[in-house]
């Protein structure tokens, strides 16, 4: 049984790995979480990579083959990620590293990317400082400041609220969100009435939200990592009747992730969030992307912002392969990535900043509404081409 299974796995691997003795093979080492707490994220990202290759493999220059070498970092384990990257570089001689869901993992890989000169495409990890850790890193995902800072400004200036409370998960991205929102909100004349940090592991939101309710702010800004906890948060918000008490809930897209919306049941509509991607956006590029996704993975499967970053990451990799006709040079690749523009991303036009190698993208202000009976993040305002605001407040030394 085990024998047959491994035979089957080996066979699948052979089939999935395009072999060509004479052809130029470009190798991409994809480091994602396929097991552990991040397995569902890894799945959403891996599916996007597969779909992109399936659709675009024919566009590669003649004789150039692409090989994806997948590795499981099992979660936020920098020492594992570093070892995998080391092996991918020294043993597999990859031309690119890609993936990297968690900030510590991306940080651990950075010095290797520099030493070995391997272009590294960060497809998720969103702590601002990552791109500064190596000149061979480019990011196609997002930063926490990119959405939380505009949201703070919008909340104070346009939604007419004056008193805000923040509740964030107690780790790096949460701290970034809290800092960004607080700075923008107070700069624009708002007043902070309190803040609380919630544990990362198995949080019970009721006591934290009760504290918020007693304080009666106009608005509650929340960050929790996208996934099941977002649904738990909505349930607590509902159960405590914060909406009835007049406390508006706002946040980044992470609290209303597209793939969790079907599980949120009677979540209160009207929640305003800022994010760079909503699966329901009606740009034609996004409609085509979502349709292709549903055709490939079934009508119940929905791509999320994780998927879009991986999709665009592959687009960036394809761009550099095509431009160099399959003969890759690390410095040329980085030069091609700097300033790379993709007007056709499902999330709207994107650019890789030529100075910081970080993503520049539209941020959309969305309202949670029921469309045809389904909860949907409806985009109603666009903040065009946002650069990471953090850079401006923390100039490189």
């Amino acid at each position, binding site marked *: 049984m*085990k024998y047959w*299974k*491994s035979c089957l*796995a*080996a066979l699948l*691997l052979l089939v999935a790995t395009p072999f060509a003795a004479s052809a130029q093979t470009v190798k991409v080492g994809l480091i994602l979480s*396929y*097991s552990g707490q991040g*397995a569902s994220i890894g*799945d959403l990202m891996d599916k996007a990579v597969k779909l992109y290759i399936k659709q675009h493999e024919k566009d590669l220059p003649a004789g150039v083959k692409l090989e994806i070498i*997948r*590795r*499981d970092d099992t*979660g*936020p*384990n*920098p*020492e594992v990620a*570093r*070892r995998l990257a*080391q*092996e991918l*570089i*020294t*043993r597999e001689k990859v031309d690119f590293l890609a993936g990297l869901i968690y*900030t*510590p993992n991306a*940080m*651990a890989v950075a*010095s*290797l990317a520099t*030493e*070995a000169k391997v272009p590294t495409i960060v497809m998720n990890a969103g*702590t601002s400082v990552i791109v500064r850790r190596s000149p061979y890193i480019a990011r196609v995902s997002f930063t926490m400041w990119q959405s939380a800072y505009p949201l703070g400004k919008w909340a104070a200036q346009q939604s007419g609220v004056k008193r805000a409370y923040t509740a964030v998960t*107690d*780790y*790096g991205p949460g701290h970034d969100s809290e800092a960004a929102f607080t700075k923008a909100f107070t700069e624009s004349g708002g007043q902070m009435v309190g803040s609380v940090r919630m544990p*990362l592991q198995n949080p019970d939101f009721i006591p934290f939200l009760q504290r918020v309710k007693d304080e009666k702010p106009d608005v509650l800004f929340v960050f929790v990592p996208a996934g099941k906890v977002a649904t738990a948060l909505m349930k607590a918000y509902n159960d405590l009747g914060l909406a009835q008490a007049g406390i508006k809930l706002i946040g980044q897209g992470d609290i209303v992730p597209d793939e969790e919306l079907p599980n949120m049941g009677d979540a209160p509509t009207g929640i305003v969030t800022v994010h760079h991607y909503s699966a329901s956006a009606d740009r034609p590029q996004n409609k085509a992307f979502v349709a292709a996704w549903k055709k490939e993975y079934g009508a119940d499967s929905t791509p999320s912002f994780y998927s879009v970053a991986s999709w665009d990451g592959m687009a960036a990799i394809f761009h550099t392969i095509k431009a160099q006709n399959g003969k890759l040079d690390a410095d040329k690749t980085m030069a091609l990535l700097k300033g790379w523009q993709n007007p056709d991303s499902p999330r709207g036009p994107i650019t890789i900043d030529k100075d910081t190698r970080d993503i520049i993208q539209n941020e959309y202000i969305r309202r949670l509404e029921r469309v045809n009976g389904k909860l949907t993040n409806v985009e109603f305002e666009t903040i065009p081409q946002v650069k990471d605001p953090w850079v401006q407040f923390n100039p490189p030394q």
Partner: protein
Amino acid sequence: MATSPPKVPSPVDILLRRRRLRPIETLPWAIAVAVYFAFPTYLPLGTEILIMVLFALSLDLILGYAGIVTLGHAAFFGVGAYTAGILAANGWSEPTSGLVAAGLMAGIVGVVSGFIILRTHGVTLLMLTLAVVFMLHEAANKAGFITGGADGLQGMVVDPLFGAFRFDMFGRTAYLYALAVLFLAWLFARLLVHSPFGRSLTGIRENVTRMHAIGSPVHRRLVAIYAISAVLAGIAGGLLAQTTQAVALTVVTFERSGGILVMLILGGAGRLYGAFVGAPAFMLAQDTLAKSDPVYWLFWIGLMLVLVVMFARGGILGLVDAALHLARRLRR
């Protein structure tokens, strides 16, 4: 000299004979050196295996020899890793002294926690060891200003070893460094378990009432071995931090405690070499399976463990023992 050896060896002779180095005991070292030359691209994995062997060896001292069942050994691994990591991130980048500090710090935590929790035994002890891991995990999480919290410790700088050997990308220096440290730890552990002190630990494991009755200072001995084990675990943690130049909260988790327990039991506890068999077997199986099947590899690991626990209670070495025993009986 001319007298013939006694027919029935005295217990002292038996104990002394066990202490003698058998040729087979050099096998792990021969393999480790051969790997360095034969598989130069597998050295990062090799280094991690060596570190896990050291960690499992430290656990064997308390679990296999003294019979202290613990789910909290990652606490010491984590203290060692964070000590080495924090030193390296704050300007103390010399590796060997950093490693000594990692061991010492873990030893201190071992003495303090051992002094308190080793008054209990059985399930209570198990829960308390678990509690120590959870407490240290949360402490490391909350003390984000020095540990980096859930983001991991950043900015470690590790100097070249002895000022001459840089920690290179292929992991050559790291591998030999880990191998040398493991070798010293093994020499020490071997000396320890065959010493009268080591023997008294086996006595405590087998019959604690009797050890009390003959006047052995049971609690003091347990605390001593607990602390020694903690030092070795701390050194293992420090090695991991220095060779990967990264530390995250996962070094001090229940999963890591459980994982090392599994590796030791897989190899066979209470025989010093279980660590040398179990850790490589587990890590290699994990590495191979995770590559051929990144999505479902955990299932195969689980299946393997179920089979080992059901059919090979003494671990892999237990199986080998049983096979040798059978062969000897058949020959007779």
